[in-house]
């Protein structure tokens, strides 16, 4: 099963004719995503009233939910964006778990905090959570787009589910900030305003990820 002798020459010629960037240090790769995402989130956060808007909840509940969202966001990003020592990426099942467990864990943690501080869960007053939903999406889209562009045309195996996991991670990051801003802890509000955007972003990531991060044959 010998390779044709002229194939190597053809491959080397096509490679030489196609410029391809070399590997950069990881901190250079993410250098522009983090400041951009933080700048957008901070601008929106301050424009909408900042921490003062979120006053009303018990301090420990505020600290607890903030830390909960932060830890989940870090873990989800590590799982979705990191690839370990593989060039291919994490297994499909792992990525699916990240995409689904992120919103589930965050919602469960809210229920736990509501059980500890039942008085906080009552501050519903008909606030559906549409502002929180919009704010979450507006904040999350930047890290999501940034991470996808960094991973552009890099995933030969499962770009869609990787996109879904990245979407969930981005939604969790936005949720960290929105949680500081929003004083409402009613489960229905949390589900619509804080968890639904994560699911929307996961679905968007699934669809966009296939297109952006997938590998396709190049015209020669």
């Amino acid at each position: 099963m010998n390779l044709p002798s002229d194939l190597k020459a053809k491959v080397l010629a096509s490679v030489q004719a196609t410029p391809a960037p070399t590997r950069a240090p990881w901190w250079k790769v993410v250098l522009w995503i983090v400041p951009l995402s933080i700048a957008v989130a901070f601008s929106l956060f301050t424009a909408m009233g900042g921490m003062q808007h979120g006053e009303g909840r018990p301090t420990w509940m505020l600290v607890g939910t903030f830390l909960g969202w932060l830890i989940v966001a870090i873990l989800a990003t590590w799982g979705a964006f990191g690839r370990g020592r593989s060039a291919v990426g994490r297994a499909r099942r792992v990525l699916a778990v990240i995409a689904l467990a992120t919103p589930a864990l965050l919602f469960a943690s809210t229920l736990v905090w509501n059980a500890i501080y039942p008085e906080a869960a009552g501050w519903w007053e008909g606030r559906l959570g549409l502002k929180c939903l919009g704010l979450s999406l507006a904040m999350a889209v930047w890290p999501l787009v940034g991470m996808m562009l960094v991973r552009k045309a890099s995933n030969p195996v499962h770009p869609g589910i990787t996109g879904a996991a990245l979407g969930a991670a981005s939604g969790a990051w936005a949720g960290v900030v929105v949680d500081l801003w929003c004083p409402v802890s009613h489960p229905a509000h949390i589900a619509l305003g804080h968890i639904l955007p994560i699911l929307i972003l996961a679905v968007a990531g699934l669809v966009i990820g296939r297109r952006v991060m997938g590998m396709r044959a190049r015209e020669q």
Partner: protein
Amino acid sequence: MSRGAIDAGARAGANALMDRYAAGDDSAFSELYDYVAPRLYAFLLRQTRDQARAEDLVQQTLLQMHCARRHFAPGAEVIPWAFAIARRLFIDGIRKRKHEVLMSNEEEEMTRASSIPPTSIDLPDALFASKQLAGRIQRELERMPEAQRIAFELVRQDGLSMAEAAEVLGTTVAAVKLRAHRSYEALRLALGDVIGEARGGPA
């Protein structure tokens, strides 16, 4: 040891070559080609059963590896990555050319059946028998679900470890083990008479 077992030293060397190439050492590509291309070709030839398509896919795969070199993680394995890219391009090719779907099992069996007898006349018995056995194994593999067949081929014919095959298929090691095991069982069941003869020894 599997037929296509890859030497660990050569494998580490190839990983180091890809590492160098990803970091910008263009001279590493030629050596990398020598290591990766024959393995890709064998894998793709088995998938396509078409030399020209296999060559084209090897070329495309290596071009993709070149274009995506910045994504190659330091210390990662190059072979699973290359195979994963090759498989993706192969699948995309099938989707693009639906009218060129691989021949159905029945048609292929007929083609093979008609092609074997003329060549068999001149072959010594043992060689003829081994060719027939290889043909039967191939036909049994083609009857298997794609997920099982590809897991079997990657592990037994391309010499990848279970973990590497899992990377190529984007699944877990446990899932590859299960698929490979099922394919062994299916083969054993289908080729029971041959295995029985082999155990009984030559007449």
